[in-house]
């Protein structure tokens, strides 16, 4: 079934996908489109989708699913170099754009606009490939092929849910929420980069959203902004980064009524599991379970076998899974008691004179200090040990004297971590850099 079919199934009355700039009424798709004019030329094509506003991206996705052969969901910040690399790998014949971002030269160019214009109904019967770039930080983007079936595999029937997300819907985590909203019975409200957190939380508070998602970095920012109290959700979802005990506890304090869940997913492996017990990590017993999603820990890294995994990479021969069908996530886990906790990325290790430290594991200890809102641990080059551990820290407003706190936080780290892992110096900063995907920027 295509996306238009899914929407029709849930009933489209009153349902919207809304950014600050645009309001896309789902009912209007019955006799309208965002790409009218050039729409016919896109049938069966491989299409680069590159628009700035997320409501436009949503409209184009609904229009193109089942109609185009392939859609490449490009993040709005991409420049010509990344677009051209993606167009090559995806053998793209067309680009859908909004005139705001510079298009690249492809045989067919179509403009996506809202509100929807009148268009005759179409049969959208192709099994469209949905192509997502992985959020690698350097080098050309890796393109991962999904279908609507693999993307919606983790979505169960649910009563009406009014969704909001701080994610971009062109990233796996945001796309999950987009598809959840569309295959459910409610609406979706989105936060573009032009809209302040204050305005967004005011808007979704008034709309009465019941479900909201974001990365732990998004949530730390929201909690820090003082705007978090403008919403009263039933359900809070974190994904995309390690949810540590501190951020889970802070959310519990802020939203005592809400169900707080952290999900584990990767663009390649799909949604693996959702944990709702308020604690970081996942029960080790999960490894013994069979069924749709199987987990395995190999050399300290989590591997996932799932029917929701991506089909393949585009433009490269690397297989997406090992011979038994398990995807190596590169996320390192450690068994503590009856639970596995995430300790960091395989490539993100800091080597202190031969001893290995995961930044995320140290950040979890720093973040546990009540005065700390967020932190970023990184390596400082050192002539003696190769590297030492240092950290940037964002304090809660009115947290107190920085000198006293530096000593206190460093002592807490030395008490809870091996000596080489404890930061040797803290720097207090007003905010931490984030990627477009809403994750902490690691090498910025």
């Amino acid at each position, binding site marked *: 079934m295509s996306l238009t079919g899914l929407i029709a199934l849930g009933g489209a009355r009153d349902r919207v996908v809304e950014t600050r700039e645009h309001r896309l009424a789902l009912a209007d798709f019955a006799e309208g489109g965002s790409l009218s004019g050039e729409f016919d030329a896109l049938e069966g094509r491989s299409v680069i989708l590159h628009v700035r506003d997320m409501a436009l991206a949503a409209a184009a996705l609904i229009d193109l699913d089942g109609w185009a052969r392939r859609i490449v969901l490009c993040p709005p910040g991409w420049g010509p170099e990344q677009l051209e690399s993606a167009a090559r790998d995806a053998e793209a014949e067309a680009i859908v754009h909004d005139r705001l971002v510079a298009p690249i030269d492809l045989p067919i160019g179509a403009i996506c606009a809202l509100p929807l214009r009148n268009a005759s109904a179409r049969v959208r019967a192709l099994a469209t490939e949905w192509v997502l770039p992985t959020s690698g930080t350097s080098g050309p983007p890796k393109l991962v092929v999904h279908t609507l079936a693999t993307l919606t595999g983790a979505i169960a029937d649910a009563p009406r849910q009014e969704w909001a997300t701080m994610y971009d819907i062109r990233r796996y985590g945001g796309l999950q929420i987009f598809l959840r909203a569309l295959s459910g019975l409610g609406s979706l409200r989105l936060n573009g980069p032009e809209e302040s957190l204050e305005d967004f939380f005011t808007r979704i508070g008034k709309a009465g959203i019941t479900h909201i998602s974001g990365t732990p970095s998004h949530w730390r920012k929201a909690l820090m902004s003082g705007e978090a109290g403008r919403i009263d959700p039933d359900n809070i979802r974190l994904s995309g980064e390690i949810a540590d005990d501190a951020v889970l506890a802070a959310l519990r304090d802020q939203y005592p009524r809400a169900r707080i869940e952290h999900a584990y997913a990767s663009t390649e492996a799909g949604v693996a599991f959702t944990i709702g017990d308020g604690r970081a990590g996942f029960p080790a017993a999960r490894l013994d379970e069979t069924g749709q999603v199987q987990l395995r820990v190999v050399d300290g890294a989590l591997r996932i076998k799932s029917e929701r995994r991506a089909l393949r990479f585009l433009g490269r021969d690397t297989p997406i899974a090992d011979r038994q069908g398990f995807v190596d996530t590169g996320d390192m886990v450690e068994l503590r008691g009856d639970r596995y906790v995430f300790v960091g990325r395989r490539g993100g290790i800091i080597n202190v*004179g031969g001893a290995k430290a995961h930044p995320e594991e140290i950040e979890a200890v720093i973040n546990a200090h009540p005065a700390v809102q967020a932190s970023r641990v990184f390596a400082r080059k050192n*002539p*003696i*040990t190769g590297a030492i551990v240092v950290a940037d820290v964002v304090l809660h407003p009115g947290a107190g004297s920085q000198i006293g706190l530096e000593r206190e936080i460093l002592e807490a780290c030395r008490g809870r971590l091996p*000596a080489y892992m404890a930061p*040797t110096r803290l720097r207090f900063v007003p905010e931490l850099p984030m990627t477009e995907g809403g994750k902490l920027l690691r090498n910025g």
Partner: protein
Amino acid sequence: MSIRLTILKELEAVAAEQQKTLAPLKDDLPLMESGLDSLCFAILVARLEDILGVDPFASVGASRFPTTVGALVTFYERAEA
């Protein structure tokens, strides 16, 4: 504060933070017998770079690294000069 005093003060601070027992500091005390491990020295060098603005370890060959407390002080004094 003189370079000598700065280094002696930071040696003591790092030893205290890392819970190491520092041997009585005198110029001919070998660094290896000071009670500090390589992590302590790594931290010391980073601190001194922040305070003094120089990291002489990064600019000379490893063979000329100082081996005593006195040589360490001279090492920094030369780099500063």
